[in-house]
């Protein structure tokens, strides 16, 4: 059974159809990159999978671990191991970063029938995980994302991912706005978390992240469809030639 199976997915926002028939299968152990120009529907796909309310699914089906994903509210998806790293991580003044993570982790553990972690065990865990993204421990006790730089916010997302250990991670433009050091740190973090059991979907506009995280499959998205798929070389070709040539082959390769 595949981890994720998307079949002919159509979705719209305010009556405008953004996704026009997405087909995608992701298996455990794989890293997929979805590339495409702005406005092609990449972030919409990420949002639909995570359960954003602004999107209406008009047709098609998504099976996650064999179950209908759309039967689950966002928190159930998260508890079942789906994780979205936000393109724009949300600032939550007054809510401590580690408190938030503890609530989050314990909600997921409860769902799995695991014991709640107490304060001491939790602290030991996050102190170990925060090293993965080379973040200062002071970030643990600051309000979630408040006053964080762009790079710090993205690192915080990967830190959350490290603590929550999802089955399927969707990184929505995680590389945008990152300087080269942050890009390296974020990528290394993702690579460390890669395993045979989990899978990652990287949504990105640029190829440069894929220098650090080597994908198994690269897809090109245009006008709400995945118009071309290939190996990691495809990303390099896109970097050289841009996206314009791809649509000429659309329909032939997919």
């Amino acid at each position, binding site marked *: 059974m595949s981890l994720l199976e998307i079949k002919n997915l159509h979705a719209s926002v305010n009556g405008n159809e953004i996704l026009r028939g997405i087909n995608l299968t992701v298996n455990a152990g794989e890293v997929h990159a979805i590339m495409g120009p702005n406005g092609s529907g990449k972030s919409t796909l990420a949002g639909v999978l995570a359960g954003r309310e602004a999107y209406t699914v008009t047709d098609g089906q998504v099976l996650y671990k064999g179950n209908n994903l759309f039967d689950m509210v966002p*928190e159930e998806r998260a508890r079942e191991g789906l994780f979205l790293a936000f393109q724009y991580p949300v600032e939550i003044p007054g809510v401590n970063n580690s408190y*938030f993570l503890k*609530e989050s982790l314990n909600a997921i553990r409860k769902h799995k029938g695991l014991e709640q972690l107490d304060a001491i065990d939790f602290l030991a865990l996050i102190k170990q995980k925060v090293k993965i993204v080379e973040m200062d421990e002071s970030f643990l006790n600051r309000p979630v994302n408040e006053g964080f730089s762009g790079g710090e916010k993205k690192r915080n997302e990967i830190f959350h991912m490290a603590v929550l250990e999802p089955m399927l991670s969707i990184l929505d433009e995680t590389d945008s706005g990152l300087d080269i050091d942050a890009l390296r740190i974020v990528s290394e973090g993702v690579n460390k978390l890669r395993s045979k059991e989990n899978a990652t979907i990287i949504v990105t506009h640029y190829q440069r992240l894929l220098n650090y995280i080597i994908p198994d499959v690269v897809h090109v998205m245009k006008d709400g469809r995945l118009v071309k798929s290939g190996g990691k070389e495809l990303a390099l070709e896109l970097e050289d030639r841009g996206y314009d040539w791809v649509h000429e082959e659309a329909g032939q390769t997919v």
Partner: protein
Amino acid sequence: MQVINQNIKWYQSKFEAFEQSLNGAKSTSVHTIRRDAMHRFVELGFPTTRQEEWRFTNILPITTIEFQPILRYELNGVTKKDIQRYMLDNVLQLVFIDGMFSMELSNINSHPIGITAGSLTEMSREHPETIRSYINNMVMGEENAFTTLNTAFLWDGAFISVPRGIVLENPIQLLFVATDREKVYAAQPRNFIIAGIDSQFKIVETYVGLAKNTYLTNTVTEILLCDNSIVEHDKFQIEGINAYHIGTTHVQMNAASRYTSNVISLSGSIVRNNITARFNAESAECILNGLSLGSGMQLIDNHTVIDHAKPHCSSHELYKSILDGASKGVFNGKVFVRKDAQKTDAKQTNKTLLLSDEATMNTKPQLEIFADDVKCTHGATVGQLDDEQIFYLRSRGIDLNAARDILTSAFAGDVINRITIEPFRSQVERIIHDRLNNNHTSS
């Protein structure tokens, strides 16, 4: 002009009975103040919504019910266990039942050396002239019917005086407990707090309703801060669900003094808090914070007045409301900057979180500035929980109700975290947390 239906005559007759019970004490100077106040109360009558200061606060029920003024102590079956939840441990504690001092429930063993703390009745007996000199000393500016009514029946309350140079480590708690009685009643404590030169202390004023029935708390607290004194004054109001609470605080601040007030209002059917703070001298600082939680049909009104009468003073104000059900909130923040009050720094913020479509908020900043070299800002926001924040929390496995709770508590935390008395802050946090959870299970 009086409104026909008002129960003014009722209070007049109660006042006459009160006077007769005083016998010889009728001729004291304190009683002259009472009599003048009664006279003034009759002239003023209760306010109506036609008056600007009461436009959004309809107190009609208060003006028609005949509340029996309480002038005699009765324990009324209250035990320490009933109020344990609201008591701070090992601090000087003055407990009042329906506005009257209760020796048996108070804790005066932890009495710090050098300070004077006790019931107003006792103090009036021992030092009548001292007390007389303080009455109405600090109440100034807008006269209102409730203050005059409180003065007319002035009898008991707390008297706290911390002399020069004394710094108290532990807070002082004034705990006002309201019980159910046979007759509908008015508890009208009058409190005096005097901070001597260079003194520093913290005081918690808690109002707890054990009563289910209707009653009125009409309380007045007068505070004087002498030069260089520092006072934190926290008011925690958890009256009965059918209670009316009118709380008036008057603060006079002398040179380089610092006054911080945190007013937490959780319960009561109609609640009106009036705070008036006046700078009598330069370089003083006034910080007013407030948090109100409204649900059901509650009405919670906070009126603040900061009078920058002198130069080089600063005031910071943060009032927040969380309104659920069909509750109503009112905030009115007046800041006067007098002609001579140059270099004034005044900042006022009012933020409201509406948790339901029926809840309403009326907010009105009112800055009157007569000096030209000042920094004055104000801002007000009324909004709902942020959908993007809720989605972010949910996308990490936290369910919708828990996400709403976390965000609501964070909104409240902004004010609660300003309370510096640790055990008290935890108590407030716990009670607010329970309250917000209850809102969920009932909605």
